């Protein structure tokens, strides 16, 4: 099941792309491609379990930081 905060947009926040890309309406930012698999519920991934941004919004359980470079 896709995350309710997921949208697909071709432009936002000064970024513009040829193809519509995953956009998080909770953060107001385009989503990293790997995180988009969580947003879309692909494989065994689920936003309710695996996304700290969603969890923080829903129940304040996440820390909403990212160590990726």
């Amino acid at each position, binding site marked *: 099941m896709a995350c309710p905060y997921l949208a*697909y947009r071709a432009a936002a926040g000064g*970024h513009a*792309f040829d*193809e*519509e*890309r*995953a956009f998080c309406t909770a953060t107001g*930012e*385009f*989503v*990293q*491609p*790997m*995180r*988009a*698999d*969580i947003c879309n519920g692909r*494989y*065994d*991934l689920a936003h309710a*379990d*695996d*996304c*700290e941004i969603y*969890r923080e919004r829903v129940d304040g359980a*996440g*820390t*909403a*930081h*990212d*160590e*990726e*470079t």
Partner: protein
Amino acid sequence: MSYEEYLAGDPVIVTAALTGGVHGKEANPALPETPEEIGRAAGEAAEAGASVVHLHARRPNGERSFAVDRFEEIDEAVRRHAPEVVIQHSTGGTGVPDEVRHQPLRTDPPPEMASLDMGPLNRYDHLTSENTRALVDSLHAEMVDRGIKPELEVFNDGHRNEVHGLLDRRRLADPVYATLIFGPGTLTRPRPRNFLTATDDLPDGAVFNTLGFGRHQLPFATMGLLFGGHVRVGLEDNVYYERGTLAESNAQLVARVGRLAEELGREVASPAQAREILGL
């Protein structure tokens, strides 16, 4: 490998990690995502000195793909733009079923090399890429069957134990080739003493590649050069050229490390030399 090998002036293999599967154009618009963009980036990187290209596949919107035909499209584009370069497919994939992780090995023709992640690593706050021993063994077995050279990705100190354990369980073709990875999170802390420990602790005869994430890319590449190792650079691992300035291209990062190698007295390996060093 050691400082003595640096003094001997052995050629250095530069691997260009062109695209990756974590971030995309939202992080740096110059990051190639489509097969044609990746092919062109490979050509430019090869021209700048890369002899190996490390490849991930993406959907048209930049999201991850593990499909065999998508990898084949990318390989065809790479071959058009860089006919001699060594192709290395990633088998990494956080949150992806094990069976899907095998797909990048099943292209026709198969890649000459493929990555083999040596153990678990955390992603974000709630995900772990498990990379179980069972998966490592099954990926390695398929690589052997298809004549693919594994590039052992050592994300942290525990993964060096896993390298030794893999050698206890399975026979690896000489030379063992391991990428030592330094950076934030689950990765080995990017400190010079950790680099020295890691290089001392590899199996006898192993050849190492050096990968620093983000701002650690250039200093750790330099350490790799100075201790007789090989280096990996590219937009998969680092989207910046310097603090606050995005890199213009993969080739820009390859060219910089090539200049550094030559200033330090190490020739940048051609694809033919890379194949000889790696036993391909």
